[in-house]
């Protein structure tokens, strides 16, 4: 089921540079369970895109299958979207990106979708540095198929039916770091203050940006034995780096006392400012980020924030040296070598 939202706009709604209100970035009314973390992610995406003043039709929403993968229905009505097959959204996004590099690819997947059936495609899209934002709504459980354990479930936890997770969990952030992702963050869906700027930063980043978003499943994984419940996450969260996203025109770096902030210039020229709460936290150290995630995990904590960013990363198309015009726009006279060339080719086979 899907419900249409009313088209009514309140005049007082704030407008962005394009003259659009956040309502212009919304999607259909969600059919997810009331309180599902995924809806908070949708809402954060709406805010991030509105604040960034991105034209909605320049964004393509990609997803696999699962409750999380349904979420793109619930934001950005004026963007094209593609709900693909279970676990194989990365390849479809790769093809879409190959066809048109001049759009932004915002992808939403689940932990079942990405860490189980789609783990191979996840790994390969990371190593190809595809220019996209890849978000995993991580609830440690299969929502859509009603509560089975996911590969991201912590070892030893129980699902709602009482089944215990016997095996090691897969940490998608450490995997992404290890595979060379140039932007890796972990957030909590309930912490909009952290999530919105991270999504904004990821969308401004060129290359592969990964955000693992702890997103509790109220229906199947919000019980006392879960390590992905609202209560558990809220109690065990620690923040590695607080980010603030500053559009380039408002750059105010000089006024900030040295030592507290680290500004990173993103590819689109905007600045991302990292507020280092932890004096040691260095967002340019890939190895350290992996260790930090692990250390926090061993203490039963979830480290959130921007874990790593490499602002100099190169995208797939740069590496591939593709033409400036998006490939879906190149005209026949350029693509087709024509009759005369074919006559020559034929001669080569005589």
């Amino acid at each position: 089921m899907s419900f249409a939202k009313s088209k009514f706009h309140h005049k007082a709604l704030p407008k962005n540079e394009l003259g659009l209100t956040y309502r212009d970035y919304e999607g259909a009314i969600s059919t997810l369970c009331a309180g599902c973390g995924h809806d908070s992610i949708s809402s954060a995406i709406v805010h991030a895109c509105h604040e960034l003043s991105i034209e909605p039709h320049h964004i393509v929403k990609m997803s696999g299958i699962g409750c999380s993968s349904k979420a793109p229905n619930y934001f950005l009505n004026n963007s094209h979207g593609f709900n693909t097959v279970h676990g194989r959204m990365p390849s479809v996004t790769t093809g879409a990106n190959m066809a048109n590099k001049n759009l932004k690819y915002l992808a939403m997947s689940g932990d079942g979708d990405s860490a189980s059936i789609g783990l191979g495609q996840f790994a390969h899209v990371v190593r190809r540095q595809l220019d996209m934002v890849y978000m995993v709504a991580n609830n440690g459980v299969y929502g859509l198929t009603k509560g089975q354990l996911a590969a991201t479930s912590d070892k030893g936890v129980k699902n709602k039916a009482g089944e215990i997770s016997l095996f090691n969990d897969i940490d998608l952030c450490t995997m992404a770091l290890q595979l060379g992702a140039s932007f890796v963050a972990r957030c909590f869906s309930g912490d909009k203050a952290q999530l919105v700027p991270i999504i904004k930063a990821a969308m401004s980043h060129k290359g592969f940006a990964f955000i693992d978003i702890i997103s509790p499943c109220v229906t199947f994984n919000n019980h006392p034995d879960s390590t992905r419940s609202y209560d558990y996450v809220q109690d065990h969260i620690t923040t590695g780096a607080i980010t603030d996203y500053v559009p380039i025109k408002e750059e105010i770096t000089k006024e900030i006392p040295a030592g507290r902030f680290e500004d990173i210039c993103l590819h689109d020229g905007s600045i991302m400012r990292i507020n280092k709460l932890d004096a040691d936290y260095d967002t340019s150290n890939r190895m350290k980020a992996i260790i930090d995630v692990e250390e926090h995990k061993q203490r039963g904590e979830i480290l959130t924030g921007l874990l790593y960013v490499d602002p100099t990363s190169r995208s797939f198309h740069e590496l591939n040296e593709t033409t400036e015009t998006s490939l879906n726009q190149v005209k026949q006279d350029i693509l087709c070598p024509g009759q005369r060339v074919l006559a020559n080719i034929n001669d080569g086979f005589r």
Partner: protein
Amino acid sequence: MSEIKINDLVVKFANTNGTGSASANNMFAKAIMRMGIPVSAKNIFPSNIQGAPTWYDVRINEQNFLGRRAGKSDIVVAMNAQSFVADINNVCDGGYLIYDNSKQLPETLLRDNIHFLGIPISSICLKEFQNPRQRQLFKNVIYVGALAALLNIEFDVLKTLVRDQFKGKEKLIAPNIFALELGHQYAINHFDCPINYRIERRDLIGSRIMVDGNTGCALGALYGGATVVGWYPITPSTSVIEKFASYCQRLRIDPASGKKNYAIVQAEDELAAIGMAIGGGFNGARSFTATSGPGVSLMAEFLGLAYFAEIPVVLMNIQRAGPSTGMPTRTQQSDITACAYASHGDTKQVLLFPDSPAECFELSAMAFDLADRLQTPIIIMSDLDLGMNDHLSPPFQWTDKQKYDLGKVLSIRELDNMKQYGRYRDVDGDGICYRTIAGTHPNKGAFFTRGTSRNQDAVYSEKSADYVENMERLTRKFETAKHYLPKAEISKGLQNTKVGLVYYGTTSQAINEARFMLQQQGIPVDLMRILAFPFGDEIKDFVDHHEQVFVIEQNRDGQMRSLLITELEINPSQLDSILNFDGLAVTADAIVDGVQAQMDQQQQEVI
């Protein structure tokens, strides 16, 4: 002395995989073509990289019967010790065995009804060449030189071939010609040249070229405007992409910027390969992938998505012998069912069946128009025999008048002028709806593509009426597809007959010879070659107008026959199968035997 045979023989080259014999053998075949005589070549190779036996069969036939000939070869060049005994037995009575007699042949191997022509090939190479690689490679060139003397092939033709082949690598020309001369001279000095098989110049080639089908597919994709490729290596489809890539490097680099007008990704597996092609098609680029049996199995789920979500995409399936890993380097036409109904649910896919490299080109280029026009996957059903062997083929054809048919894609202006847009509204009644591409319009035409059921406006819906309407429209679209697809080719015999042969793809190579042989035995036949699925009305007509129809297929289960029966509601008793599934290309003899056997059996039943 037996009679002299002109321009009608089979030469088999028995080599060892990895010794570089392919180009010498190919030079031999090409020289015959350049002398104006129809010739075909088949490479029979193991699923192994180096060391195992390989064979290269060249059939020379001025009547243009170029399918694989049944039975033994007239001349065997036996260069592989491993297969030597079998190769000797493969020479027909009165035929010739050419072998390296640098070491003496054991008496036990001798047969007295064939001619043994020993050439001390290794010794000659050892004496004349210093470099070990050259010693190995030139063995092959030496026997080609000897064959030229034995069969009376014009030596100048060979010399020109060498010059053409090594254009840009001039240093290699002289030693190759020298090696040819060594073989040639040895044969003239030691044997009674020419032998009873001879090549005589003719003018029977016309504009034809000698090329493999995968090159045709690759060039077809290039000319058809493909820009996005995801792929995963698998024999025998790999060279489609490798050739596409190398032609792109030559012909698709923007001269001003040096940048590429294409993108190719070697995917992690076939799931990703077709996923990429679908992503490209979704976003408005002409996209394709190439694979073979096991890859098709993996792609099935995605093909169902592309069918239901209505995404244009092209899949080139170069079939090999299944099931499972089957015989990876042997040919078959056994993916008909798997492709026609690829994926779960009521899914149907559009198939095209090329029969020559020229048709691989034409249908591949056309596939991109069809995919865009019909917004659905188009599967090219080639096979190993067509894809990897050199065939005498009409030249590739393209006229600059041909314009890409991008199908029903709405522009920003068209969207502006539209009151209401709905992705799955059948505005024209042909089952094909209008699509919009991401990025076109700021606030009109965006929709969600999905594999789940939806209503006409692309909104998720599980309402029975919405689902049924959509599925019926897809059926309507499949009907419409027939108007855009190539019709079956029907060839009536000179005499009226009630016997029809139905075939498709590479069986073409053997069919004219089979028809000729049947005619000689008093069984005139009409022919029908199927070029596409869904089937056009002419196919049912042909079956209805013949009392006895044989469907010739290179698979065990008569998959095309089943498809014809199911799709056209043909009475199964109207169609008999002639099946060949040993991994080698079907021969005219097999077809003739099949027809005869079944006719005899039916006669007996009547008695």
